[in-house]
Structure formats: structure tokens, C-alpha cells
């Protein structure tokens, strides 16, 4: 239906029409007692370590929404390109969408230029995007990858700040994880030692932080390829609920069986020729 108050096509991108309405509604819901639902955060522990042959990234798998665990098997290590993976902490939707956009942009770039993207390019794209939105996109990311210039590990904060260091932890459990990393990190570690170190760092984050928990995922990126181990270690407190409630055939026993044959007699028969020319 054509509206006469629309004089030009609406601009694409973010639409701020409902902001003043939302602010007004916030205090009105049930007389100020009920609030708008909180977005799902990944109160998290994520960590990364650069070792001799590549980069090891690790993350826990709990996603919280307020005080409730919203997802017990959340995947926090996102694919960016065949040689780069990114762990995300902060608002779950923001990290998902940002890494998706980054991955799409890098794919277009590698198709038009015929080159594999470098980690610095991904970091610069992320930095521009996050700074443009002044931190309203709540995504703290650890980006790790192997390219022609070597093994790199970068962190990007929600306002667009970056840091390039050999070992990192982010999220609500980062202080606990950083303690383990500071104690036992050595430059040029072997791959297995690096995996154990990251596992221990995430484990200490899980033990010391309420927002992290459940399983540990590890992602190992080397020149030869990527090994995404999900889960690397499962928590001992798994619940025993079934996911599927479908019953096996034969669960209900059959008591009686009665067969009634339907007698059909041919009343009329017509033949229609099909033209297959």
C-alpha cells in the first residue's frame, strides 16, 4: 500500500527510529518491575598462544543470558578463512555477525585478488568496523592465523583497539587464564605443550569465573592445516538428559491384531492414449 508520508526510499543500514520509543518503554513495563530481555552474552574465557609451528586457540562453551546458562555447547571459535580462526567474547550475536562479515569480506578479497588474506588485513577490517560503531558492537575478539609472514595472534577490543602479543586471554575469565599463561609461557613452544597450556588456562578460567564453564574447545592452526577439536575436554558435570524423546519400535507391546480386507470391484475402466510424439 502506498503511503503518502514516505518521500524517499529509506536508507539501508541501521535504523534508529525506535530508540526513543525503547527508552520510554523501559520504565513502563509492569510499572518498572519487568525489564526488556537481556541479550545473550558469552561471559567467557578465551585464550590464544603462538607456538613454534603455528597458533593454538582455546575457548570454553558456556553462553549466559543474565544469570541463566543459555547455551551449554556454544561454539566460540569462528571460522574466518582457511588459515585464520577467531575466538569471540562479549555479546554472542555481535561476535557471530562480525566474524561472519569479516569472513565474507576476506573471501571476496581472495577471489578478486587471487591471494590468501593476511592476518593484518583481517585485523584492520575489524578495527575499522568496530571503531565506526564506537563500541556499540560488544565484541572482544582474539584473532589467530598463519600466513606467508608467519604465525600471528591479535586481540581486538570492542572500541577498535588492537594488540599483537604472543599469548592472550579475553573475556570475563581472562584474569585467571592470564595468570596461568604468564607463569608457564615460553617463546617457541612445542605444539603439544602449547595445547596443554591453553587447556590449563581455559580450565582455570572455568574454575574461577561464573560466566565460563562446560566444555573446552581447542583449535590448532598450522601451515599444514587446521585441527578444530571440539570438544577437547568435556566437563565432568554433564547432565544425563536425553536430547531425543523418540521411542524405539517395539516399545509398546501389541495385545490384539484384527485385519479387515477391503473388497473392491471394478466398476468402470477407461483407456486414454498418451501422445508421446
Amino acid at each position: 500500500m502506498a503511503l503518502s508520508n514516505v518521500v524517499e526510499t529509506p536508507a539501508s543500514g541501521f535504523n534508529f527510529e525506535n530508540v526513543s520509543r525503547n527508552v520510554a518503554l523501559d520504565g513502563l513495563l509492569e510499572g518498572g518491575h519487568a525489564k526488556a530481555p537481556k541479550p545473550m552474552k558469552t561471559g567467557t574465557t578465551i585464550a590464544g598462544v603462538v607456538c613454534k609451528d603455528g597458533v593454538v586457540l582455546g575457548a570454553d562453551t558456556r553462553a549466559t543470558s543474565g544469570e541463566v546458562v543459555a547455551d551449554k555447547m556454544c561454539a566460540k571459535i569462528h571460522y574466518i578463512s582457511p588459515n585464520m580462526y577467531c575466538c569471540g567474547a562479549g555479546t554472542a550475536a555481535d561476535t557471530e555477525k562480525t566474524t561472519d562479515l569479516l569472513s565474507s569480506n576476506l573471501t571476496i578479497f581472495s577471489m578478486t585478488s587471487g591471494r590468501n588474506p593476511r592476518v593484518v588485513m583481517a585485523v584492520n577490517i575489524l578495527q575499522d568496523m568496530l571503531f565506526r560503531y564506537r563500541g556499540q558492537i560488544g565484541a572482544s575478539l582474539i584473532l589467530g592465523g598463519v600466513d606467508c609472514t608467519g604465525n600471528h595472534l591479535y586481540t581486538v577490543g570492542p572500541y577498535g583497539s588492537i594488540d599483537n602479543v604472543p599469548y592472550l586471554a579475553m573475556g570475563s575469565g581472562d584474569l585467571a587464564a592470564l595468570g596461568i599463561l604468564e607463569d608457564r609461557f615460553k617463546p617457541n613452544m612445542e605444539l603439544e605443550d602449547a595445547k596443554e597450556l591453553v587447556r590449563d588456562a581455559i580450565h582455570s578460567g572455568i574454575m574461577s569465573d561464573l560466566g565460563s564453564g562446560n566444555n573446552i574447545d581447542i583449535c590448532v592452526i598450522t601451515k599444514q592445516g587446521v585441527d578444530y577439536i571440539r570438544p577437547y575436554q568435556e566437563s565432568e558435570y554433564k547432565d544425563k538428559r536425553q536430547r531425543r524423546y523418540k521411542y524405539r519400535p517395539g516399545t509398546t507391546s501389541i495385545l490384539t491384531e484384527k485385519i479387515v480386507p477391503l473388497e473392491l470391484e471394478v466398476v468402470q475402466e477407461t483407456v486414454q492414449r498418451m501422445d508421446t510424439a
Partner: protein
Amino acid sequence: MNTRGLRSQLKDSVPVTGMGPQVGAYGVQDTLRSGFSSVKNELLPSHVLELSEKNFQLNQDKMNFSTLRNIQGLHAPLKLQMEYRAARQIQRLPFLQSSHLALDTLKGNDESISFEDILNDPAQSEMMGEPHIMVEYKLGMM
């Protein structure tokens, strides 16, 4: 390089374009088309990003052109702006969907994806404007 000077950093003298009362004919607000006016809603942007997003493309272009002018001389931005102006004229009437293919290729938008391509796609907008009014607005007759 920030060429705006110190005056623009004073809080109450930042020009808020697009936030003023919308004047229709006769210099007052057109109540029939845009509803009742509320001074508070019009003077202040309600979201932190509203203003910066509205002018983001313009500011980026300004910055890029001034850098280009400093590096290569005046001819470079002039030539580019001439091409943009020519490409911008290749479009359909305002109420129809135009592809902006030439303009997108010139600006480099065909090689990147951002929130402008995903959110609020004008091809899937739920509101359609009245064709005569849109053409009149575009031609400046309204």
C-alpha cells in the same frame, strides 16, 4: 587531518543537520504528512550513533578526497567527483528500484559487504511511497 578547527568542538555549536523541524510549505511544519511536532525529539539525536551513521559516507568521502588532493593535486578529486556525478545520474524514477551498478563499482562497494547490504535492504522495504509525491519531492516541487 582535522580541518574543522576548534569551533566545531564546542558542544552547543555542532550543527545538527537533519534534526531541525521539518518545514513544509509556508514555513511551518507539515502536520498532515509528518505528524505532530515535538521540539525535544527534533533537537537531540536519540542514539549515540544516529548522527555519525547518517553522515558517515559523506565524511569518509570528504576525508578521502582531501587526502587525495594533498597527495596528487586538485585534479584527482575533481576527476573522481565528475565520474561519481555522472554515475549517480544513471537511475530510475525514485519509487522504483535502481541497481546503482556503476556507482557501486566506482566506489568499491561491489567488493565489500557491510551492514548496509544486510540490514534494511530498500528492495525489501515494507513501506511503499506514493509515486507522484516521491517524484515531486525529488524534483523539488514539494
